Every structure is written in C-alpha cells, then in structure tokens.
C-alpha cells in the first residue's frame, strides 16, 4: 500500500533543493542589483539631536538657551593613515593627548564598549570656535566625522541653582530608565528645572539614514529619506522668575550664605529664588564639565546645595504668628487676651509686661506663646495630662500642617525638603514609649525645639498671611510650551484650616512689627506699607541666623518674601534689610535707600 511513498518523499526533498538553488542562482548570479546594493548598502544611521527647550523669565527675557557644539567621531576601521602632527595642529591638542585618546579608544574596543566599525566619540564638545577651524580640514582625515549637537548656555549666572544643569546621562540613570528613551552619551537635566521638566524640555530625537558605499563615502539619503524623521525641539518654559529681581537678589546675597525667595501671593508664582553661595552655571557645560563639577561639588560652601528648598532651619519667632492663628481658631484666646510676661519659665526680651495678642506678636513675647500653647494642648478634654496633651497636639499638628509646613510643598524642583512638624507619633518615637506631656515639649511654642522649616515654606507662609488664609503651591513655571498654563496642580487653591477673619490680626501685628519695632526700621519703606516678622534662629557656636519674612503692600499684596542669612545675627538686621530692598526693587523698580543697600553689601557673613 505504501509502495512508492519513499520515492515521493525523496522527490520532495530534491524539488525543494532545486527550487532553492534556482532562487539562489537568480539572486546571486543573474540579478546583479543585490551586489550593487551591497556596495551602497552600508546605511549609516545618524541621530538628529533635538534642540532643548528654552527657558525665559516671566517677561520673556532669555535665561537659558542653546549654543552649538560639536563632537568629533572616529570610525577606526576607516582610519588607514593619520598625519598625527597635522591632526594635533588642526585640533589643537598635544601629541601626548592624542596618544592618550587612542589608548583609551583601544581599551574601549577591547572591553567591547566601542567598536572599530561604529562611529565613536573621539574628542567631545568642541567649541564653536574650534569647529570653524576644523570644518575646513575635516576632509583631510579619513575616518573622522563631525557630529553637531547643542549645549546649554546661560544668559545670567544669578539663577544657577533654580535652573539646574544638564550633563551626560550617568550609568545609573541609564540603567534605571524604564522608558528606554535614553542612550549612552545623551544629555539629561540633572537638577533644578532642567531635571524637573526634563520630559518637556528634551524634545524628540530624529533619525536620518544615509547611504554609504564601502569606502565610507556618503551617497545621499537612503530611499530619498522615506524613513527619516525630523527631530522635534523640546518645549520652551516660561518661568515665573523676574530676572531683574533675581539678579538684584543675587547681587545682595554676594558673600553671604542663605536664601531669598519672593512669591506673588495671589498666584504662588515664584518671582525670585536665590541660593547663596552659588556657582557660575557656564562652568557645568562644555568640555571641562567633569573637572569643574568636581571643583564645585567639593567647595566647602556647598554652592550646589539649593538652600531655599533643602536647608532646614528652626522657624524661630516667625512661628508665633502661626501659633496665634491656631489658638484663635481653637478659641483658647481672643485678640484681647492679655497674658503677663512671666520670664520665670521661659526667657524673653525687650521691655513689656502684660501684652494682648497684637502686642505679643510685635514684641515676640515668649511667655505669652508658652501660655497659648499650653491652653491649646491641655484643654482638659481628658483628665490624664498625658492623654490630654496627645489629643491637643494632634489637633495642633493638623492646623499647622495646613500652612504647608511639615512636608514638601511640591514646588516644581527636585529634592525639596519638607521640614518637620512634630506629632504624637513623633514624640512616641523620640521618647521610646515613655510618656510625654506639655512640659516636655513646650519649646515648640516659640518655634524652637523639634520644628524645622525650609525657607520656601516661610515665603509661602508670608504669602498665606498676605492672602488672608490661602495659597497656591509655589512654582517656577508659568507656561509649558505654547500651552500658556502651568501644570494643573499649580492652579489649585489651598485653604488653611483657619477662618480667614483671624488673619487680619496677624496682618495688623506684622504691620506693627515694621512700623513700631525697634530694629525693624530697616524694613520700612516710605510709600508702601510693609508687613513683616523677624526671626532669629540660634546657631551655636556661630552667630545666629538672621531671618525675616514680609509682604507688601498691606492691602492687595503683590509680593511676599522670606530671607535667610546664615550667621548674620538678629533678623532685624541683614534679613530685614534684604527683604525690604527686594520689595522696593519689585514694586518701585529701584532702591531709594542707598544706605540700606550699602549696609547689606558690606555685611560679609561667610564662616
């Protein structure tokens, strides 16, 4: 029955073999187009790097732009002969450097980090000037190619910390990039806005396929560019920064350590954000990035440390305003409540004896707020004083946090710190389960003890008082691309848990701090009512940190400021002066008080 089937199977084998041989004969011997194709088949893939988005200030002034830069690539396999003397002359390097470059290249090839057949960066980030010279001579060196891309350039060096910098992607970042967008050698925002808005700024790479014959000569686009894609430039960012104000602030902070933040209260837009000491951002671009970065990051003054968001301080006396608001809301005092200045338990300063709330804020009376906190924490809800404090502290904590304290506000910059607001759980941990009550924790009454804030939170706090009870999360970008809008979460209004009516007391008290306080005259302006509050943060053994928050004008405020000057003594001095100068600059355009400006500039507080 199965006779002949073996033969049929064998015939099938042979048929397939014949079909294959015929087809092979056609494509290998008869149709020569394949071998022509192979000649030109070396399709070179060229990445077209997109232009990174520009960053401007709120008035459209350019802050960060791009300048062209060129990498020299080598395809080692194509280098048959190299006039090294000529090469060194054209590229302006020493024979020793050239030897090192080749040694490096051979090492990379041996370790499979590079291939002799693929274009490999040889000299990176040639400047525009280098390029002009090289362009005419590149043809002399076979196997070498120029690849253009752009590097960041900065119109002002006053915004280094807020804007951040861009550098080649690190090995770790590359490994953690789950989207697989980046490749080795790509540039990526490393800090500041550059990092936060990376996905908007970076744009989309394009690609171009070029036909190259076997001698490496480009024969033109592959299939007339049918598979090419153009690069799409990154989106531009319009920031909320007022560049004039920013530069003025940086000018005032020269030789000081600390920060200045100015916010437009009605919108939460950050008008200026200065971190001192800072660095020259242009150092972190171009060929010398690595050595400069090492220099800057090893500087003992920590210029890369973005103090407005990252430096945590105790809030000091400024915290008393928040205490007052919470106490009024909880109903444990009224604005008329008078408490004697009993300095037995807690020290005080200045001559006053028995102030009401406004007076207590103006004079920063410690015993007053000690008593206010005790009334809040021990309301007699529970007979157990430990339990009672716990209940009171939980309430207090909730109110304080509604001012945006105790956790990061969520500004559009990376690495924001949240400060610290103690809650019952915190003290349980700190006391390791042993009981605690008001008498253990009262130093938080006057903003000392466990409280921590960052300067940005204090500026936002000033904005909350200026707004009489609400804030928009501070942000630095007004508009992404052509949208004209910031990110949606910066369009949300946040209310505190305090009734807006209580804020008038704080506003009045802050007005009196400036108009009546003894040292605070430096914050006074002739035509504008400035409301402010000093803070002096202990900093043993160095001099205290000088702190001042303010907003102006009193009605319909246009600017809220917080100023921290490290180791500069009382808040009424350096910080109050700088705050008022910033307000003056923003509202009037220039200072009418050169004496105050001189006073600030003369102060050098770097230790």
């Amino acid at each position, binding site marked *: 029955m199965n006779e002949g089937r073996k033969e049929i*199977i064998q015939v099938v084998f042979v048929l397939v073999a014949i079909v294959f041989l015929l087809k*092979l004969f056609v*494509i*290998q011997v008869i149709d020569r187009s394949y071998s022509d194709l192979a000649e030109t088949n070396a399709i070179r893939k060229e990445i077209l790097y997109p232009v990174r988005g520009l960053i401007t200030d709120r008035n459209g002034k350019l802050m960060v732009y791009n300048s062209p830069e060129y990498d020299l690539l080598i395809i080692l396999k194509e280098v048959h002969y190299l006039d090294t003397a000529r090469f060194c002359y054209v590229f302006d390097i020493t024979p020793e450097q050239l030897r090192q470059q080749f040694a490096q290249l051979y090492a990379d090839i041996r370790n499979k980090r590079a291939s002799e057949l693929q274009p490999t960066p040889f000299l990176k980030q040639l400047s525009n000037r280098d390029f002009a010279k090289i362009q005419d001579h590149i043809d002399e060196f076979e196997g070498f190619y120029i690849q253009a891309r752009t590097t960041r350039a900065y119109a002002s060096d006053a915004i280094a910390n807020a804007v951040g910098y861009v550098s080649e992607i690190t090995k770790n970042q590359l490994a953690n990039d789950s989207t697989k967008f980046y490749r080795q050698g790509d540039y990526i925002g490393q800090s500041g806005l550059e990092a936060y808005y990376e996905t908007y700024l970076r744009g989309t790479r394009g690609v171009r396929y070029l036909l190259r014959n076997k001698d490496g000569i480009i024969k033109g686009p592959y299939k007339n560019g049918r598979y090419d894609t153009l690069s799409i430039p990154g989106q531009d960012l319009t920031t909320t920064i007022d560049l004039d104000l920013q530069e003025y602030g940086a000018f005032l902070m020269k030789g000081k350590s600390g920060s200045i933040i100015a916010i437009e209260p009605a919108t939460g837009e950050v008008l200026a954000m200065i971190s001192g000491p800072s660095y020259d951002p242009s150092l972190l671009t171009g060929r010398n990035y690595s050595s400069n970065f090492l220099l800057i990051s090893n500087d003992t003054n920590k210029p890369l440390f973005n103090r407005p968001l990252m430096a945590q301080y105790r809030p000091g006396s400024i915290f008393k305003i928040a205490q007052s608001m919470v106490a009024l809301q909880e109903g444990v005092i009224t604005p008329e409540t008078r408490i004697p200045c009993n300095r037995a338990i807690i020290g005080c300063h200045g001559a006053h004896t028995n102030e009401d709330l406004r007076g207590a804020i103006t004079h920063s009376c410690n015993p007053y707020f000690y008593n206010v906190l005790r009334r809040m924490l021990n309301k007699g809800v529970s007979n157990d004083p430990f339990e009672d404090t716990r209940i009171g502290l939980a309430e207090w904590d909730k109110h304080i946090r509604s001012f945006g304290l105790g956790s990061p506000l969520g500004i559009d910059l990376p690495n924001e710190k949240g400060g610290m607001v103690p809650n019952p759980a915190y003290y349980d941990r700190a006391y390791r389960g042993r009981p605690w009550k008001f008498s253990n924790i009262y130093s938080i009454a006057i903003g000392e003890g466990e409280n921590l804030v960052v300067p940005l939170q204090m500026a936002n706090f000033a904005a909350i008082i200026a707004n009489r009870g609400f804030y928009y999360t501070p942000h630095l970008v007004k508009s992404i691309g052509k949208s004209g809008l910031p990110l949606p979460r910066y369009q949300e209004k946040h209310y505190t848990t305090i009734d807006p009516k209580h804020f008038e007391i704080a506003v009045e008290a802050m007005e009196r701090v400036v108009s009546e306080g003894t040292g605070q005259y430096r914050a006074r302006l002739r035509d504008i009512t400035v409301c402010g509050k000093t803070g002096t943060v202990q900093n043993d053994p160095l001099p205290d940190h000088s702190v001042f928050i303010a907003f102006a004008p009193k009605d319909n405020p246009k600017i809220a400021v917080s100023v921290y000057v490290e180791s500069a003594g009382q808040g009424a001095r350096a910080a109050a002066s700088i705050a008022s100068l910033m307000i003056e600059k923003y509202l009037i355009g220039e200072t009418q008080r050169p004496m105050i400006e001189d006073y600030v500039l003369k102060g050098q507080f770097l230790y």
Partner: protein
Amino acid sequence: MIREEKISNRMDWITVLLYGIIVFWGWLNIFSVTYEENQFIFDPSINSGRQLIFIASSIAIIMFILIMDMRFYETFAWVIYGVMLFLCIVVVFTGHEVGGNQAWLRIGSFGFQPSEFMKFATALAVAKYIGTVGFKMDQIRNQIRLFTIIGVPMAVILLQKDTGTALVFTAFVLVFYREGMSPFLILVGIGVAIIFILTLLVENEYILFAIIGCVWLTLVLLGKKKRKRIMVLTATALMLIGTIKSVDFIFNNVLKEHQQKRIRVLLNPDLDQLGAGYHVYQSKVAIGSGGMWGKGFLKGTQTKLKFVPEQSTDFIFCTIGEEHGWVGSLMVIVLFVALLFRVVYLAERQKSRFARVYGYCVACILFFHFTINIGMTIGLFPVIGIPLPFFSYGGSSLWGFTILLFILLKLDAHRLQVMNRG
C-alpha cells in the same frame, strides 16, 4: 554473538562524516559572522569559542547515546516524552524570555530550551506508537491519537510564544503519510495555504469568488451532469469561499502583529525595509552580493557590519551565501540533501517498524528545518525563527539535533539484533 562486535564496526560512518562536515563548516561560519581583526576562533568569549564547547559536549552526548542499551529508547519512549513535555510546561510558567520567546529554562547561569529536545522525544513517541503490534494507520482512532501526540507539545510550545518551533511538529505529518495515511490531508493543507496567500495577495476577495464561480460553472457544464458530482463540486466551492472569508479573520485576530507583518513582507518584499522587512531584505542583499564564488572566508562585508540580525543563529545561511557564493550554497544544500537521503536509506533498511518510523521522523524534522530556514533567508518563506540543523549557533539546538540523529545511528547499528530477537 553479534552483540560482542564493536559498535564502531557497525556504525554508519557515512552519516557521521556528513554530520561532522556540516558541524565543522557551521562552526567556521559562526566565527566568520562576528569576526573582527585579531580574533581567535577558540576564544571562549566569542560565539565560535562557545560553539566549540557545545560541539565538544555533543561528542560526549554521542558517546552516551551509543553506550546506552539500544532497547532503552523504545522501552522508555513514553517516559522521555513525558519528561520533556513536563519541562516544556515548566518553561511556560518559569521560562526565561529571550528575543520574544519564552522558551528558555535557566539552571544557574546555564540556559537551555526544552523545546529543542521535545523534537526527538516526540519522534520516539510517534515511532513507539506506530510501532505497536497491530497498529493500523487507516483507523481514524489511531490517527486522532497520533495527532494528539504531536499536537500537545505543539500547543505547549505555542504557549511559550515560540511559533517557529511549534510549526516544526507539522513535519510529522509527512511521516504519517509514509506510514500509510492518506495524502488527502497534506493536499488540503497545501490548498489552504495557497488560498490563504492568494487572499492576502488579491485585495478584492470578490475577484476570487468570481474565479471560483467560473471554475465551478465550467466544471458543472462540461462534465457529466451527475447529481453526486455537482453536489461535490458545489460543496468544494462553498468551502473555498468559506476559507477565503475566514482568512481575514484568522490573519487579523489569530496571528500576532509581527507575524502578520512577516507574511505581508513575504508577499511584498519592498514593504517596510527598515522595519519588518529588514531581516529578509538585508539577508537577500547579503546572499545576493556573494555572486558565483563568494567574497571569501571572513571577507563578507554585509555580515561584518551587522546588517543582518540574528546572523549566527537563524540567518547563518547568509554568511554562506555572501562568503562562499552560489557554489558554497550549492555545497551546503547538497550536503543536506545527501544527509536526508542517507537518513531515509537508513530508515528503510531497519527491520523494526519502530526504528523505521523513527528514521523517517529524523528525516522529516531535518527537512522541515532545512526548508524553512533557508527558504526564509532567500525570501521564499515568512521569517520563522528556527535554526539550520547542526549549522546554527546555539547549544540546545545542536544537542537536540545530535541526539535526534545519533539515536537513529544507534538503532541502525543494532538493526540485525532486532531480527535475531524476532
């Protein structure tokens, strides 16, 4: 006693020689694919060095196969089948994904593909079943069982997303045919494939319907007007129309996107040369540029510049085409056909049905790989990722094929004993 005779005297050395030439040539080509200057073929950090280790271990495997008692393979056919099937199922759940396939089992740093070993295991099982005393191919029940034996591993391997290897199991149908199954099924399969491709080629399916209608009408009018004949013709025409109707559905809903693309590219080679058509286009350019005599060993430019992906595994034939030209391709094809003929010859001279069927299984599996692999590199078949036996780089595939072939040689060496046993 015959048993006392040395196995080396009874081995079929012609097959061993063909095997050796193919493996050696494959090894040289694997070296050539990744060749850069100053590389050493034995360097264990490159593919050729690793392949040498695979070859050496294959020799150990061959020794083992020859030492085992010849009855082992028949006696334990079902056990081997079961164990391999179990491993394949394990891979579905724990498998390591390599290049879109989830077919790898990892033991420490060592990975292997159970599906490569499933082939010889299934061959043993098929041979065992057909070799059962009293087995009759014309019984539907037996055919169903046979198709189950090949269908289950196929399904499991499909679950591993390894379509290519799963398709290899269709090669057994040819064995069934040799053992007496009606050729009807094979013809229907070929017919459906032709209709499938026609449907994809002809945009407007009504043109096909019209052609079927015309043919039907002509046949009805010209032939004898018997009722039964007209019924059969009508039924066939309706079935054809049904198949055409279902092609779109199968193509769009059953096949995965990359599979759809590969079929489209096969039908229209100029489509998407940098995308789905890239493999075939580059492969054809590489082979085509070889000309009559080739560019010479290690002199291929297309392969060196890494234009052809998966060059050392599935597209190894490109290196032959480019470096050794049409003459080299001819030699490879002749080598394979010679091997196939020799295997069929060995199968036919077996005294037991088990051994003969197993021999045909070997021939058909090798034939399927040979056809699909070379066919896809020259654009005659869609890109289905299966290796060229003994030639492609890879441990599992080399070991799998070695075991497959040498079990046959072991059975063949003892063929006279079977007769003695009765």
